[in-house]
């Protein structure tokens, strides 16, 4: 059941991205280009998404189990730290370079576009760089290295 729900959530999310125009990098860049001919559409995409999700999230807030019985794994409020801010600043630079963020990247792969696949390969490589440094950090000092 969880697997079916996951697939459906991904599918509906992707359909939403296509309908909204978020899957089109040229349109995303039109939103990010404040000084040019600005296309405000994506502000409405965010507004629509937040409005649709906010009520449900607040209802789920006090629950410890999902409707299918899975433990609720919504992040608990944490500190605003340097990692969060620097990582997000960096992400915005990459987003602005091509107009592609992770969700639309996967949808573009589904369009069968080679450029979408190249972006995803690079994105996963970037995530791999993060994992490499994280795993080094997690390993206790002085332990044997593989």
């Amino acid at each position: 059941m969880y697997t079916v729900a996951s697939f459906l959530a991904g599918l509906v999310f992707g359909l939403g991205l296509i309908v909204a125009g978020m899957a089109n990098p040229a349109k995303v860049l039109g939103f990010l280009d404040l000084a040019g001919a600005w296309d405000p559409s994506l502000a409405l995409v965010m507004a629509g998404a937040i409005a649709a999700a906010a009520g449900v999230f607040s209802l789920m807030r006090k629950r410890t189990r999902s409707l299918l019985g899975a433990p609720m794994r919504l992040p608990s409020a944490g500190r605003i730290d340097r990692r969060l801010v620097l990582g997000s600043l960096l992400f915005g630079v990459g987003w602005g370079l091509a107009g592609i963020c992770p969700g639309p990247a996967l949808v573009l792969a589904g369009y069968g576009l080679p450029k979408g696949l190249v972006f995803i390969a690079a994105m996963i490589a970037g995530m791999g760089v993060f994992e490499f440094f994280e795993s080094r950090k997690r390993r206790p000092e002085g332990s044997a290295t593989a």
Partner: protein
Amino acid sequence: MSIAWDAFTPATALIGGAIIGVAAALFAVLNGRIAGISGIVGGLLRPQAGDLSWRIVFVAGLVAAPLAYSLFAVLPEVRIDAGYALLVAAGLIVGVGTRYGAGCTSGHGVCGIARLSPRSNVATLAFIGTGFATVFAMRHLLGL
């Protein structure tokens, strides 16, 4: 600033946004998880028993979306202007940045703000800010 009225698509933006929000809500209600794409993909690189299949099928759902859409209507055209070198640089930066920042447009921008998370509000302001700045630099300073 001038508004590109011919490119502005308020109705499909709101409807598409609402569909995205419904998907995120559905995922939280049924599976108890945040629909944060960078976290879902990034978790695939840290394989743990029992933690892989839901990630893989969520990604498969996203990838299958254009096919599913094309069964009912003509797929909207998309355009990637960036060349391959720029795409590689952008992808690498997005990969590193979203993992250090613990989220992207979906996890912070949609789910986080909808949950009133202060962390996600800060993250979203940060990445939209540098997104604006990057496009400004590219188009209006460097003329790319």
